[in-house]
């Protein structure tokens, strides 16, 4: 018997993945898959779906288990060798805390969202891709919690991520982003998360920020970050594939997809302002500034992607030029906001050191020197005079992105940008034209947003009457989990460990 010719990758993949599903007969297909038509997307032939990575489930498990083995070997080494002492500075931990509180729950939400989207698509190729991504996202949530759990033994503010995720005003920014996507139809969900968020924007999170974690000695975050990002390449490919698939299937899909790209580009960009702030302010050793990252990953790589899609009649997302105009200020405006609302944050804030201010001057130039450096120096003077500034009222937040309304006009960095939208005799506030457009396109949806400051003032936060009672309701201890970094238990512990290198104390010895 002659040896059979080995099949090529394309043939193997086709044989392993096609013809496995069937047309239902006991129930009509439209009742088995009730959600994949109402958004208006027309699919003529699901078999035209192409998965560019051609990964079968067998290879998927093989490579995922290899990634896990590598990851856990490193996490063991990190824990056994007191890896927490190797970070550049304990201020760095604010970035880790924000990741744990804000980003890890998104991974879990993505796991749920892709399980749902996968069930909703009647094409088997799309279902398998969503299934893999759903499993990946659960892996990301678990590995992040596992990696961060070691830091929780030594630093404050990490004890109740699941509790504050549903209660903290600043965490409603990422939470509402994902819940908007999850409450949309399956095509919009995949466009929003896999394409707009993962392909266009998460390079900014997982590349410069994780590289920054490496530079700041955080072996745990670097390892799970890059391990997660290796899955992310597959997710990005799914995102691009689903967009091209919709555009190729029917011309009526083009305006629907364009509207989603406009919406989710802007929502994703607003959310990533938090990541930019992590890069510019929370990394004691700087790798790349937000404006540089924006230039590489959006102005170069992101725009290249949209050039590629222009053959389908897709144009650049609306307000991309506003995002580019804001690149030199958005992180400074956000940090000033986090700094002043520090009594209701599960992480610390501070005024950067002189060498950091010089780095910002170098990266951001005249605008930083005329607007933001003087403000930061004023804050420092106030602090040195014993008057560290806290704004103990609750901010008005945008009805769409839920970020406090503090961004400035696209053409005037000295004027606050507010847009008032109306629907059914009620007025709502938005931070930008981008968010106002999103509201006006789906007012019935966004009028229902649960806005944390409004809820708190209504007594829905355990009856809290001020910001301090509110922080208690979040299970955050004043000046331990919240507030200024200088003089905090995290700061004092860090100094003690660094100078004397004794056996590290745990939180309960020092803080509780």
């Amino acid at each position: 018997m002659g040896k059979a010719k080995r099949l090529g990758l394309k043939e193997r993949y086709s044989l392993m993945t096609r013809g496995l599903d069937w047309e239902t007969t006991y129930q009509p297909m439209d009742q088995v898959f009730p959600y994949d038509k109402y958004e208006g997307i027309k699919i003529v032939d699901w078999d035209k779906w192409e998965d560019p990575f051609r990964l079968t489930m067998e290879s998927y498990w093989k490579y995922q288990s290899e990634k896990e083995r590598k990851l856990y070997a490193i996490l063991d080494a990190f824990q056994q060798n007191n890896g927490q002492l190797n970070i550049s500075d304990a201020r760095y931990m604010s970035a880790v805390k924000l990741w744990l509180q804000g980003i890890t729950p998104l991974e879990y939400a993505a796991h749920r969202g892709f399980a749902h989207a996968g069930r909703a698509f009647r094409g088997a190729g799309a279902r398998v891709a969503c299934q893999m991504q759903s499993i990946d996202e659960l892996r990301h949530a678990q590995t992040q919690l596992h990696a961060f759990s070691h830091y929780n033994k030594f630093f404050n503010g990490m004890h109740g991520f699941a509790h504050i995720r549903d209660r903290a005003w600043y965490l409603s920014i990422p939470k509402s982003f994902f819940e908007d996507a999850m409450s949309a139809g399956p095509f919009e969900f995949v466009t929003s998360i896999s394409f707009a968020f993962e392909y266009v924007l998460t390079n900014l999170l997982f590349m410069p920020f994780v590289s920054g974690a490496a530079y700041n000695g955080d072996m745990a975050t670097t390892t799970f970050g890059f391990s997660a990002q290796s899955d992310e390449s597959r997710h990005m490919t799914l995102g691009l594939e689903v967009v091209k698939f919709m555009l190729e299937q029917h011309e009526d899909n083009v305006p629907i997809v364009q509207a989603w790209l406009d919406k989710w580009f802007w929502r994703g960009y607003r959310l990533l302002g938090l990541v930019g702030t992590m890069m510019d302010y929370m990394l004691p050793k700087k790798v790349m500034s937000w404006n540089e990252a924006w230039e590489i990953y959006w102005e170069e790589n992101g725009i290249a992607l949209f050039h590629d899609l222009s053959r389908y009649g897709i144009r650049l997302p609306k307000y991309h030029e506003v995002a580019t105009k804001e690149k030199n200020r958005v992180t400074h405006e956000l940090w000033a906001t986090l700094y002043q609302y520090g009594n209701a944050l599960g992480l610390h804030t501070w005024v950067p050191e002189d060498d950091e201010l010089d780095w910002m001057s170098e990266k951001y130039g005249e605008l930083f020197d005329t607007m933001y450096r003087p403000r930061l120096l004023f804050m420092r003077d106030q602090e040195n005079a014993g008057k560290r500034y806290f704004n103990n009222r609750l901010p008005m937040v945008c009805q769409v992105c839920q970020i406090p309304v503090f961004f400035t006009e696209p053409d005037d960095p000295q004027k606050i940008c507010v847009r008032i939208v109306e629907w059914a005799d009620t007025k709502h506030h938005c931070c930008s034209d981008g968010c106002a457009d999103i509201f006006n396109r789906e007012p019935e949806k966004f009028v229902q947003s649960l806005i944390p400051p409004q809820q708190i003032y209504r007594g829905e936060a355990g009856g809290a009457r001020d910001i301090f009672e509110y922080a208690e309701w979040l299970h955050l201890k004043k000046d331990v989990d919240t507030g200024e970094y200088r003089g905090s238990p995290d700061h004092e512990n860090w100094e003690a460990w660094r100078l004397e290198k004794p056996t590290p104390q745990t939180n309960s010895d020092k803080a509780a």
Partner: protein
Amino acid sequence: MADKVFIALQNNSEAQAIIEAILEDNTNAIANESPGMVKIDCPGRLVVRRETVAEKMGREFDLQEIHINLISIGGNIDETDDEFVLSWNS
């Protein structure tokens, strides 16, 4: 000039062979290093060839092994047993 495609890989010893192979097979590619990773940009099109990587590693190499050290990509993918190609159509 054509828009750039890119591939980013973890900067570890296994990926080093892949990076070397890419730079050898794509004369216009430029490697940009930052902590923990290498991002390789190339105008228009970039190819990862199985044979070249296997030569650099000194062992057989399955192109799908690239998933283990891959960080990110920009471009449309076309993958066969022998080549992993990134390109823009514009």
